[in-house]
C-alpha cells in the first residue's frame, strides 16, 4: 500500500507542471496559434521565480514561493508576447518563432544569472515549496494517503486550473470565440470579433500558464535554476496536449499518465516481474502512444482546424 501511495503521489507531483503547461498550450492552439515555445517560456518563468526567491525569502517568509511563481507567470506572459507579435502581426512561421524563443530562453536566462549571481545558475534558495500533509483531508483512509499526503499544494492549483479552463472554453462566450478563432477565423471576423485580439489573448494566457508552471517546477524540484531545470517538460506537455485531444480534462488525464509512466520507470526495478524489462521501455511508452494517437487523430480532425494557419483577412 505504501508503495502504491508513493507512486500515485509522486506521479501527481511529476504531472503538475505538465498539466499547467499543456493547459497553456490548449489556450494557444484553440485560438489558432501553435505554441512550441512552451519549453522556452517555462525556462523564463523558472528563472524569474528562482531569482526572486533567494533574494526575497527573508522579507516574505513562507509566501515567497507563491509570489515567485506569480512573477514567473507574468514573465512568461511577457515573453510569450514576442511569439504573439511575430506570428500574428508579422505573420512569421509559428514553428520557427517558437523554436527561436526556445533557443533564446536558455541564452538569456544564463546571461542574466551571470549578471545577477556571477555564476551560470541562480543562487540556491531555502524556501521553495514544501511537501505537506493537507490538514483534515490527509486523515481520510486510503484517499488521504493517495492524494493528500506529502503533496505540493501546487498540484491542487493545477487541478483548479483544469476545471476553470474546461468551464471557460466550454461555457463562456469568450471560450466560444477563442475556439472559433482556431476553427474558423473568418466566421469570427464576420461577426465583428477581432481574430487578432483573440489570438493575442490565447498566446498570452499560454505564456502566463507556462511561466507559472516553470516557476512551480523549479521551486518544487530543485534548489536553484540551472540551464537543465526544465529539461524538455515543455515538449512533453505538447505531447500531453495532443494525447489529451485538445481538451482540458483530456490534458489532465494524459499528463497524469505521462507522470505515472515516468515514475513507474523508477519503481519498476523493484517489482519482481518487471525488473527484467529495461526501464527505458516504460519511459518511452508515453511518446510511442502520442505518435499512435497522432496517427489515429489525423483522420478524425480532433484538433483545432485552423491552428498554425495565418489568418489573412483579405482572403476571406
Amino acid at each position, binding site marked *: 500500500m*505504501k508503495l502504491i501511495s*508513493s507512486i500515485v503521489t*509522486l506521479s501527481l507531483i*511529476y504531472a503538475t507542471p505538465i498539466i499547467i503547461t499543456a493547459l497553456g498550450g490548449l489556450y494557444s492552439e484553440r485560438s489558432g496559434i501553435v505554441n512550441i515555445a512552451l519549453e522556452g517560456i517555462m525556462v523564463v518563468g523558472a528563472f524569474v521565480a528562482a531569482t526572486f526567491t533567494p533574494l526575497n525569502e527573508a522579507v516574505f517568509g513562507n509566501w515567497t514561493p507563491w509570489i515567485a511563481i506569480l512573477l514567473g507567470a507574468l514573465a512568461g506572459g511577457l515573453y510569450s*508576447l*514576442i511569439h504573439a*507579435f*511575430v506570428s500574428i*502581426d508579422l505573420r512569421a512561421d509559428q514553428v520557427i518563432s517558437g523554436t527561436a524563443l526556445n533557443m*533564446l530562453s536558455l*541564452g*538569456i536566462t*544564463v*546571461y542574466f544569472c*551571470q549578471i545577477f*549571481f*556571477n*555564476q*551560470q545558475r541562480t543562487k*540556491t534558495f*531555502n524556501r*521553495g515549496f*514544501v*511537501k*505537506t*500533509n493537507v490538514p483534515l483531508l490527509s486523515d481520510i483512509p486510503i484517499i488521504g494517503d493517495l492524494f493528500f499526503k*506529502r503533496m505540493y499544494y501546487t498540484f491542487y492549483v493545477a487541478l483548479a486550473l483544469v476545471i476553470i479552463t474546461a468551464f471557460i472554453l466550454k461555457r463562456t462566450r469568450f471560450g466560444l470565440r477563442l475556439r472559433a478563432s482556431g476553427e474558423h477565423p473568418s466566421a469570427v471576423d464576420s461577426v465583428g470579433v477581432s481574430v487578432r485580439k483573440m489570438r493575442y489573448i490565447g498566446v498570452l494566457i499560454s505564456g502566463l500558464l507556462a511561466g507559472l508552471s516553470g516557476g512551480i*517546477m523549479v521551486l*518544487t*524540484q*530543485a*534548489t*536553484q535554476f*540551472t540551464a*537543465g*531545470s526544465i*529539461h524538455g*517538460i515543455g515538449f512533453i506537455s505538447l505531447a500531453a496536449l495532443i494525447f489529451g485531444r485538445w481538451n482540458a480534462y483530456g490534458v489532465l488525464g494524459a499528463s497524469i499518465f505521462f507522470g505515472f509512466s*515516468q*515514475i513507474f520507470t*523508477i*519503481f519498476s*526495478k523493484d517489482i519482481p516481474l518487471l525488473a527484467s524489462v529495461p*526501464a527505458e521501455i516504460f519511459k518511452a511508452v508515453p511518446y510511442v502512444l502520442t505518435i499512435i494517437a497522432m496517427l489515429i487523430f489525423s483522420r478524425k480532425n480532433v484538433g483545432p482546424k485552423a491552428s498554425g494557419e495565418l489568418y489573412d483577412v483579405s482572403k476571406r
Partner: protein
Amino acid sequence: MKKFLTLALVLLLSLSLIACGGEGAKEEDKPEAEGPQSETIIDNEEVDKDSLEEITIGLVTDVGGIDDKSFNQGTWEGIQFYAKKFDLPASNIGYLQSTSDADYIPHLSQFSEDKKDLLVAPGFLFEESLKKISADFPDQKILFLDAVVDAPNILNALFAEHEGSYLVGVAAALKAQDAGKDTVGFVGGMDFDTIQKFEAGFEQGVLAVDPDMKIVVDYVGDFNNAEDGQTLAAKMYDAGVYVIYHAAGGSGNGVIKEAKDRVQNGEDVWVIGVDKDQYSEGVYEGNKSVILTSMLKGVDQAAYDVCKLTAQGKFEGGTVIYDLKANGVGIPADNPNLTEEWTKTINEFADKIKSGETVVDPVPSRVK
C-alpha cells in the same frame, strides 16, 4: 505598440548574442591578491622562489563557468593560489570562459598560440578537443583534470574518488548507527565506471563501520534531471534509507530538495554532497542544513601542484592519481553536522588509507 514590441525584440535578440559570444571572447584577469593562504591546498615542500621559472598559465573553463563553485572555480583557485604564493604577476594567469562545447577548440588554440607555459582544461568535457589540440600544438604543456587523453604533452590528473567516498561512507554509517537506523543509500548520475568508483568507496566505508548496514543503490540515468533525482530520493527515504550519498550533479539537487522537504515535515533524513562542499545548498532554516558532509575533489591542489612542476621544469606527460595521500580527495574542514568524535574516527580511517593499511577497491561489489 508595434514599434515598442519591435524594439523589445531587437533588444532581446542582441542580449542573447552577447550572452552567446561576449564574455567568452575576452581574456579575463582577476588581479586581487590577499596573501598566500589556502585552507585546502597543502604543500610541505619548501621551494626557493628564485629557482622557479616565471610561467604563464591559461585556464579554459567548460560550460559550467568560472564561478561554478566546483571544477572550474576550484582549478582557478589553485592557479591563483600558486600565483600569489610565488608572486607571479597577475597578467601571467588568465582564463577563457566557454559558453558552449564549440568554444573549447578556439579557446584552447588561442592560449596555445599565445604560447602559455601551461594550459589547463578542467573536466572530461574537454576530451575530444584536447585530442586535436595536443596534436596541433605538440609543444604545449597541458594539464587535463579528471579524465585521460593519451598524448606526450598532456598530464592527466585523476582523482581517487573511491577513497574520498570511503570516508563519507564512514560518516554515513556513524550517523545512521547513532540514530539507530540500518539503511543508507547511494544515488548515482549514470551507471559507468567513473561513478561506480563513488559507489564502491561509499559501500566499503559503510561496511567498515558496520558490516550489517544495508546499502540501497540506484542511478538516475542523467546528470541534469532534478525531477528524477527527487523521485528516486523519495523512493529511497520511503524505503527507510536514512542517509543518501549522491554523485549525480544537477540531479542531486532534487535529492537535496526532497531531504529538505522531509526535514521540514519533521522527518529525520540526511544527504551527503559531492565534488564541493554543498552545505549551503541544504540549508532549510537559519543555519541548519540537511548536508551531513561532502566528498571533495582537490582540483585546486592538482592545479597548484602542476603549476609548480611546470615552473620547476619537471612537467611530464602521463597520468597522475590524486588520492587521499596527495590531498586529492577528502571531506570539508568544517562539518557542523558531524560530532568531533566522528570526525576523529573518520580521520583515523583516512590515516589507514594514507598509510596503505586499508586499500579501497574502485569497483563496487554489485559489478564484480
